[in-house]
C-alpha cells in the first residue's frame, strides 16, 4: 500500500507499486488534466509537480511518490505563479488542440517558481522537454515572459 497526496488530498494505492503516477492520477484518482502522450518521458504531456519539482509522471512509479505531495494542473493554477501562468496563457490564446498544454503550464510554473526573470535561453532549457505538435511555441514563450512581468 502506497500513501501519497494529490493536490493536498491523501490517497492510497494498493495495486502495483510500479504503476506510473500518470495512470494513478488519471484512472484511479480521476483527474484527467494530466495527459498521456508518449509513455517514455519524451513529450512532457504528463508533467506534474512532485514536492515542487516538475516530473514526468508517465515514468515515475506511484511508489516513488510515497509520502509526498503531487500537484496537478487542476490545483497548480490556484497558487500565485500558477494563476499568473494561466492568465497569460489565456490572454495570449496560447492553446490550439490543448492536449499538451497542462504539461506545458506545469513546466512553466516550475520555471517561474525558481526563476522570476527567465530569458529566452532559460525558457529553452526548461521547456524543451515539452512537445507541442501544434507548435504553439511562439506563444508559450511570450506567455512565460508575460507571466514573469505580471509576477514582478
Amino acid at each position, binding site marked *: 500500500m502506497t500513501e501519497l497526496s494529490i493536490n493536498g488530498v491523501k490517497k492510497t494505492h494498493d495495486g502495483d507499486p510500479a504503476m506510473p503516477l500518470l495512470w494513478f492520477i488519471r484512472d484511479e484518482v480521476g483527474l484527467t488534466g494530466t495527459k498521456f502522450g508518449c509513455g517514455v518521458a519524451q513529450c512532457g504531456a504528463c508533467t506534474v509537480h512532485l514536492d515542487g519539482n516538475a516530473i514526468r509522471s508517465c515514468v515515475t512509479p506511484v511508489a516513488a511518490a510515497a509520502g509526498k505531495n503531487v500537484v496537478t494542473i487542476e490545483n497548480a493554477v490556484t497558487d500565485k505563479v500558477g494563476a499568473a501562468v494561466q492568465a497569460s496563457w489565456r490572454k495570449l490564446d496560447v492553446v490550439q488542440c490543448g492536449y499538451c498544454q497542462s504539461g506545458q503550464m506545469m513546466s512553466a510554473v516550475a520555471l517561474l517558481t525558481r526563476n522570476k526573470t527567465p530569458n529566452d535561453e532559460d525558457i529553452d532549457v526548461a521547456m524543451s522537454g515539452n512537445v507541442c505538435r501544434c*507548435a504553439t511555441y511562439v506563444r508559450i514563450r511570450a506567455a512565460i515572459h508575460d507571466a514573469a512581468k505580471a509576477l514582478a
Partner: protein
Amino acid sequence: MGIMNRLAGQTPNADDSSTRAPLINVSRRGFLQTTGGLALGICFGPVACTSEKAAVSAADVAPFVPNAFLRIGADNSVTVIAKFLEMGQGTFTGLATLAAEELDADWAQVSVEGAPADAKKYANSLLGGQGTGGSTAMADAHLQMRTAGASARAMLVAAAAEQWKVPAGEITVTKGVIRHAASRKEASFGQFAESAAKQPVPAAEAIKLKEPKDFTLIGSTATPRKDSKAKTDGTAIFTQDIKLDGMLVAVLAHAPKWGATIKSVDETAARAVAGVIDVIRVDAVPGTTRAAVAVLAKNTWVAKQGRDALVIEWDESAAFTKGSDDIFKEFKTLTGKPGTVAATRGDAAAALKKPAKAVEAVYEFPYLSHAPMEPLNCVVDLKADSCTIWNGEQFHTIDQMVAAGVVGLKPEQVTIKQVYAGGSFGRRASSKSDFIVEATSLAKAARAKGVEAPIKMVWMREDDMRGGYYRPAFVHAIKAGLDRDGKLTGWQSRLAGQSIAKGTPLEQFMVHNGVDHTSVEGVSDTRYAIDNLQVELHTVDYPLPVLWWRSVGHTHSAYAMETMIDELAHAAGKDPVAFRRTLLEKQPRHLKVLELAAEKSGWGTPLAEIAGKKRGRGIAVHESFNTYVAEVAEVSIDEDGVLKVDRVVCAVDCGLAINPDVIKAQMEGGIGYGLAAILKSEITFDKGAVVQGNFGEYTPLRINEMPVIEVHIVASAEKPTGVGEPGTPVVGPAVANAVYAAVGKRIRKLPFGDQLSA
C-alpha cells in the same frame, strides 16, 4: 486534409485565377448517398432545419432553439452548436464569431459544443457528408452560421416587439441587450428565450445579413478562443478522458507488419496479470486495420501490462516486407519513364529538347506520421440495439456508416459524441475509418464473449506511430528549361507515389483518368505561367494505407515546385522574387502575398551578421485550399553544419479574415509543423516493419528550434477560405532556398537530417 476538391474532381483551371471550387457541388453531395445509402438532406440555414425543433421548444423550461446551430437558454446563455471538430485549428471560435456577429450577442455569453453525427442537419457542403477537413470549415459555414445568428436575432426582436407593443424596426440589439430606446425598455436574450421560441422562423429571403462595415466581432481581436479556458485548467475533455460506469480499457498488440495475420496467441501470462479481465482477438480487416490482440482491464496500466505479456506468433507470409531503400529505388526507376498524364500545356517535350539552359532535379519525400499529441483512441458502448461512440470525431457521416456496418446496426442507431481532439492533422479523418473499425470490431468481439461494458480503446504512442495512414512517400523528377533571356520555357514533372484515394470509398470521386488529384495538386494546377508543361504520375500500389497529412499533396509538391523555381531563378541570373513576379503577372493574389512577404522581411537588404555562422534568406509562395501564402525564411548555419531557422515572415490571403488572431496562430503552428517535417521527420521501413516508434526516433520540433514568426494578413473582402493547412507547405521550400542562399547547397532528399554536416 484536402478532400473538398477531390470529391468533385475539381481541379482549378491553371490559367484562370478567378476559377474557384464552387461552394456547393451536387456530385459531392451525392457522394454519401451513393456509397452509404444514407438519405442526405442539406441544411440551407434555419428554415429547412428547424420546424421540428421550434415546435418542441414550446415547453416552459425549454431553451430557445431557433435552428440547428443555436440554443439560447433562459439563463441568458448562448450555445453555438459546431458541426466541425475542434482539433486546435480554432474552428469553434470561428463558428461562434459568425453566429454571434449576426445575433449581436455579447462574446462572453457565448459557448460552443460539438454537434452529434447528423448529416441531415450538419453536412459540410464542400465534403458531401458531415466532416471536417480540407480547410473547409469557414468556407462552408460562414453564411450558414451568420444566417443562423440573424434568424435567431429576428425572432428575439419579434418577441420583444410583441410584448413591448412597439415596432420591431425600433428595437436595437447590442452586445446581448435588446433595447427599445423610446420607451426605455431593455432585456436580455434569456428573458425573451421562451417567447422567441413561439415566433415564426423568418423566411430565408427576409433575413438580412450585416454589411462588413457594421461588423463588431468578425475581423476583430475581441473574440478570444472559446476553448482557451477549459484547455488551461485541465477540464477540457478529450477521448482519452472519457470515463463511463463499468468501462474497461483496451490496450492492443498490433501486428508488426501490414498484412500479417495471427498465427497463435498464448494468453497465459497476460491473464495472470492482476486486474486483466479478458483477452480479445481482433482480426485484421485487410487494407484497413492491422491484426491485433486486445487486453481488457479496469485501468490503462493493467491493460498495457497484460498486452506486454501476450505471446503472439504472427504469420507474415502475406505481409508488406519492403524496406525504405527498395521503395525509393522503385519510385526513382518509375520517374525515369513516362507515366499517366495529369496535366499538359503546350509541348513540354519540344520545349525541353534544346533549351538554352536545362535544370534537372530529383526530389525524395519520406512517409510521415501525423503524430498528434493524443495517440489514437476511441470509446465504444455497444448494446443490443445501440452503439454510442465518443471520439475526436472528424468524419462523422462516414464513421457512423462504417461503425453501423461493423456492429450490424443501422447508422441511425449509432450515436457519435464529438469531443475535443488532441490534434489530428488529418489522422482522425480516416478514409477507411480504420480506428473506428478496430474499436467497434473489438466491442463486438468482446460482447460476443459476454463482456457487457463500454470499452475505451487506447493506442500507445508506438501503436499510433506504426499504425500506417501516413503521408505517402513521393519522388518528383523535374526537368525544366530556360531560353537565352532566362525565361522559363518548358517544365516536365514525373511523380511516383501511392494514391490516398485509391482503394477507399472516395476513389470514384477523387481519381479521374487514373490520376488522384491529391498526388499531383500544386504541380498539375500550378499558377505559374509556364507555356509548356507536362505532369505525369506513376501511382504505386502498396498494401500500406496512406492518408492526407496537413495540406496533403502540397506537402511535397510545394517543396519540389518552389525549390526548383528558385534554382531556375538562380540559373537565369535573376532575383527569386523578381523571377516569380514575372511568372505570376496574371495572379494578383499570389503577387500580393509575394510582395508583402518580401517587403516585410526586408528582401534585398543584407541580413545581420552572426559570428561564426553563414546566413541566408529564402522565399516561397504557394496556393492551397484557395488560400495564398508566401513565406520568407532566414537561416543561419554554423561551421558544423548545424542549421537554425531564425525567423519566418509570412503573408497570407484567406479572403475575409474572420478571426485574425486565429489565422495568425494557424500560420505559426502550420510553420512549426511543416518545419518539423522537413528538418527531422521520416517514417522508414525495415523489411516492412516501421522503424520509428516514439518521439525519440520520430523527433518533433521543440521550443528551442522554433523560429520567430511574423504574420501579415492581406485585407480582403473575398469569401473566407481555410487556414488550418496552407501555412504548412510553404516553409519547407522557403528554408531550403535560404539554405542555398547561405551555403550554396540544394537539399533534395527530405528530411534535411544531417545533410548540411556532410
